[in-house]
């Protein structure tokens, strides 16, 4: 628990470094239609323009700077959502994944498991393929952001472990996802 909390702290700092602006970024984009899952970071895809220096190492020094809202933001930024039959990462998740990548780069002892999932449409074994391809997409971005391959593992559950049980676009959009699970 302590370790998880510590990770959240590091992650929140990394997100701030990536230019996230605060709680409002969790509001779904209206332009993409109904039941869009929470975006994973700043909807503004442009570089933050801020070059951060010297991420604080593990330690409690910054805990007091975290608001409850920021902690909530961190916990909600552990899932990347995908379009139907697609495995490319939507641009609104770039900032979030950049933050995760830098968190991992700064903490070589930390490992994350990338669990790929699909919605229930289509055949089960093909969906295992789709889930694997999605987790590989996320893996590639984290590698580009400086994470080491040894910190990343992937698994695809296909449609076998839905986040939401339901046969409508609202449920499906929440099930097409990669979950980042820290050890």
């Amino acid at each position, binding site marked *: 628990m302590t370790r998880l909390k510590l990770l959240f702290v590091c992650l929140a700092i990394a997100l701030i470094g990536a230019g996230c602006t605060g709680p409002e970024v969790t509001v779904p984009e209206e332009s993409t239609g109904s039941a869009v899952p929470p975006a994973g970071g700043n909807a503004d895809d442009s570089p933050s323009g801020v070059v951060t220096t010297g991420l604080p190492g593990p330690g409690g020094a910054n805990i007091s700077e975290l608001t409850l809202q920021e902690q909530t933001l961190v916990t909600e930024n552990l899932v990347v959502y995908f379009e139907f*039959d697609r495995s490319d990462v939507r641009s609104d998740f770039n900032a979030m994944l950049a933050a995760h990548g830098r968190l991992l780069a700064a903490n070589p002892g930390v490992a994350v*498991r990338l669990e790929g999932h699909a919605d*229930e*449409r*289509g*055949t*089960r*074994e*093909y969906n*295992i*393929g*789709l889930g*694997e*391809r999605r*987790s*590989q997409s996320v*893996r590639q971005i984290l590698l580009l952001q400086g994470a080491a391959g040894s910190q990343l593992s*992937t*698994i*695809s*559950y*296909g449609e*076998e*472990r839905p986040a939401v*049980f*339901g*046969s409508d676009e609202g449920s499906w959009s929440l099930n097409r996802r990669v979950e980042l699970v820290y050890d």
Partner: protein
Amino acid sequence: MFVSMRSEWLRGGCIALVLAVALTVGTADGQLRIEIRSGVERPVPMAIVPFGWDGPGVPPFDIAGLVTADLGNSGRFDPIPESDMLSRPTQASEVNFNDWRILDVDVLLIGQLIEAAPDRYTIVFQLFDVLRGEQLLGFRLSTARADLRAAGHRVADMVYLQLTGIRGVFSTSIAYVNETPNPDGSRRFRLIVADSDGENSRVIADSPDPLMSPAWSPDGRRIAYVSFEGEYSAIYVQTLRTGARDRVSSQEGVNSAPAFSPDGRRLALTLSRDNGNLDIYTIDLATQVLRRLTQGSSIDTEPAWSADGEWIYFTSDRAGGPQVYRIPSVPPVDRAERVTFEGSYNARPRMAPDGDSLAVVHRNQDNYRIALVDPDTGLVQVLTNGRLDESPSFAPNGAQIIYATREAGRGVLASVSSDGRIRRQIASVAGDVREPVWSPYPLP
């Protein structure tokens, strides 16, 4: 002699489909029950008289009831209710054919169950052509009490073969995956083997993590499947009689979609290994030698063997959406030929026992349905009408396909005749039921 009668029935012609005939048979807890949803043009009217009982107390098993359910569920026969019968003969000397002609019954089955010795039973049965007043079939079977159900299915198989010319599948089994919620909200996954009518179900694997992709060995003695226990995927081969299992593939990444070769020596499977790219492999079960059959960045999965073992059919999105391809099962490989062209989504092929057609999951607008594809012409014939139908599996006689469909948001099993005319639902009583696979014929 009986052939003439059979062709007469077949000539019965285009009488309206019998729709929504609900026929419910024995529903034990945790079992499946069968409902016929659409029927054959003209099911054959027949009478199956309750079997006589020669022994103390009540009969240990209702043989006639089981045969009635089997033949009725096939959609090809229409057994009359017991209450309509004018007489209840249990041996040939008691049969008055006029009692059955007046009911427009074409075929009559009578029999007896006899306790010959402690835990030894004899089933005697006779099948008659009512119009001609002739016996078509007469047999005597001997069995232990525990095997009375199996013996009843054998009676149904013999009657079915006599009347249709097609080997029956009432003595075969099905395997499927059942998912149920636990009280704490977590999930429970079970791999189940049952008789082909859904009764007599037995759990062969039980896990808090997903189980998927069951596949029978050609001798019906083993089942390969994927388990996610321990938070990674692996392929196991389990011997049904003992419950013992071997882990045959636990490579890094995806281990998926096992399929036994027709000789039972190899498995086709899908691996992603270290690069996350799904490709088809075969593994020799004795030597563990792995052979890679496909390359490239596409998703290649869902391998299925041709009946002669020379080809492997599989799903690939190498041309965009998923389509069915085939490739030789031994090197030199990677000259895959595309098999399906009609529609934007054709996946998870399964070859018919006679090799003449492939069952696939075919997307029709936004619906996923079971379809037959002619592997030579690519012609597609849609057989089902659900929204999310999947996992087709041929019965060993090729006459029926079992598949998974949805009813009120729940996964249930259904079957359809290969001509698309007879559909029936096999409804589960608890949880989500899916990935049905039909066993081969039982060994003699």
